[in-house]
């Protein structure tokens, strides 16, 4: 993996919200086809880091390249660059006035300029990958939370991104609906998608992640393969966090 250049390379990321210093110099490298899990207590800055990667948040300083594109440069066409970075949100954020198919097809038509027929064919294929082809004509309000999140995954992968960002994709779901979303993510992974996942699904992390990054107080405390980080955490902070999680 070390031979290929990283898909995501973030260096020295700082982020201030007013007087709040949320990220205090974070580095994150993600190799092609790698699944990186980011864990940490709430307020540790993990979601902010993820949102910096596609510039939904503007870092105060640092550098970020995705697939060789300087994401923070003023001369970068950010709308073109964002097509290479798919994002899935905690609250799904599907467009409620459009069908599942319309949700997936919108950017294909309006960003990639495809015809309606071509966009819808591509959207159907993306919905099929999350096993929701039969729900194409449903509105978000007619779908379960798990189905909505899978449509959101389809919306992102339809643009054929180089990396997918997941911001707590199962946190808003009822427990019985989590499995379907994790299954969709696992299939993406098996198809070779590069993924950065912020989540509390430790079971999924242990089973599927290549690397786990533990963040606290705006810094990366430690990182390593899941067996190592979960089995033998080196830092007191990591042990305390994992201890608290296991008690549940």
């Amino acid at each position: 993996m070390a031979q290929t250049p990283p898909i995501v390379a973030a260096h020295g990321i700082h982020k201030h919200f007013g007087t709040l210093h949320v990220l205090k110099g974070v580095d994150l490298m993600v190799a092609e086809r790698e699944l990186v899990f980011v864990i940490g207590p709430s307020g540790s800055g993990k979601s902010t880091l993820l949102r910096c990667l596609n510039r939904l948040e503007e870092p105060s300083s640092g550098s970020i390249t995705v697939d060789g594109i300087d994401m923070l440069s003023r001369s970068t066409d950010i709308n073109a660059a964002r097509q290479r970075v798919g994002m899935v949100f905690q609250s799904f954020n599907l467009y409620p006035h459009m069908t599942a198919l319309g949700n997936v097809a919108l950017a294909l038509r309006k960003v990639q300029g495809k015809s309606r027929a071509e966009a819808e064919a591509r959207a159907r294929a993306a919905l099929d990958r999350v096993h929701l082809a039969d729900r194409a004509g449903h509105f978000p309000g007619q779908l379960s939370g798990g189905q909505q999140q899978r449509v959101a995954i389809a919306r992102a992968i339809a643009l054929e991104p180089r990396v997918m960002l997941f911001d707590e994709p199962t946190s808003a779901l009822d427990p019985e609906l989590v499995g379907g979303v994790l299954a969709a993510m696992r299939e993406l992974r098996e198809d070779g998608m590069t993924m950065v996942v912020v989540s509390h699904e430790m079971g999924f992390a242990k089973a599927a992640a290549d690397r786990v990054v533990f963040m606290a107080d705006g810094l990366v405390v430690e990182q390593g393969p899941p067996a190592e980080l979960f089995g033998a955490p080196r830092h007191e902070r990591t042990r305390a966090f994992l201890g608290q999680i296991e008690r549940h």
Partner: protein
Amino acid sequence: MTGLDRFLDSFFNLRVAVEYLPKIIDGFWLTILLAFCIILSGLAAGLALAVLRSLGIRPVNWLIIFVVDLFRALPPLVIIVLLYFGLPAAGLSISGFASAWLSLALVLMAFSEEIFWAGITAVPRGQWEAARSTGLTFAATLGHVVLPQAVRMVVPPLTNRTIAITKGTALASVVAVPEILGAAQAGVSFSFNPTPLTLGALAYVVLFFPVVILGRWIETRFAWKR
């Protein structure tokens, strides 16, 4: 003549009614034309201002807020009279129809801007973020994702406000526009009988009842599919 006869003769005088009905009908069409002009330009201007405000250019927004608050504060009749009697003093003559149109359109613009703006700000931030994360531009996100949701949310207050302001077309009678009320009042002065006013009231019911029903239909039509 009994009291009832006197009442019927005053308000339901058939001879007067027949004589002045054509004038009221002319006024009816004029009111429709005026209302149509006001609704079209007022809502379009209100939406345009709300979109402009969403760009977040601070001095522009201050100006928008000032203009909107001004026209929400001023009574429509004051604006109509000011334009009709005030502008000629500045060497700019303006017809009664134009002054009524402009005044009420400005008022509708002000109120509808606030309503559209409330709708835009009520669309969750996540909708913007989801759309922008797929590479949609600010304008495309506004046009395809945010405005369709914002407009749907504000249809009920918007139809209410539109109907309320459109009824202000009756104010145009003050500046000699022969719309429904103007025509009716003229009829009263010529016939010395208030029956034309009864016709006028009926004309307003005939005109605005369907509008109210239409508003209700739009509200159901735009509700979410669940």
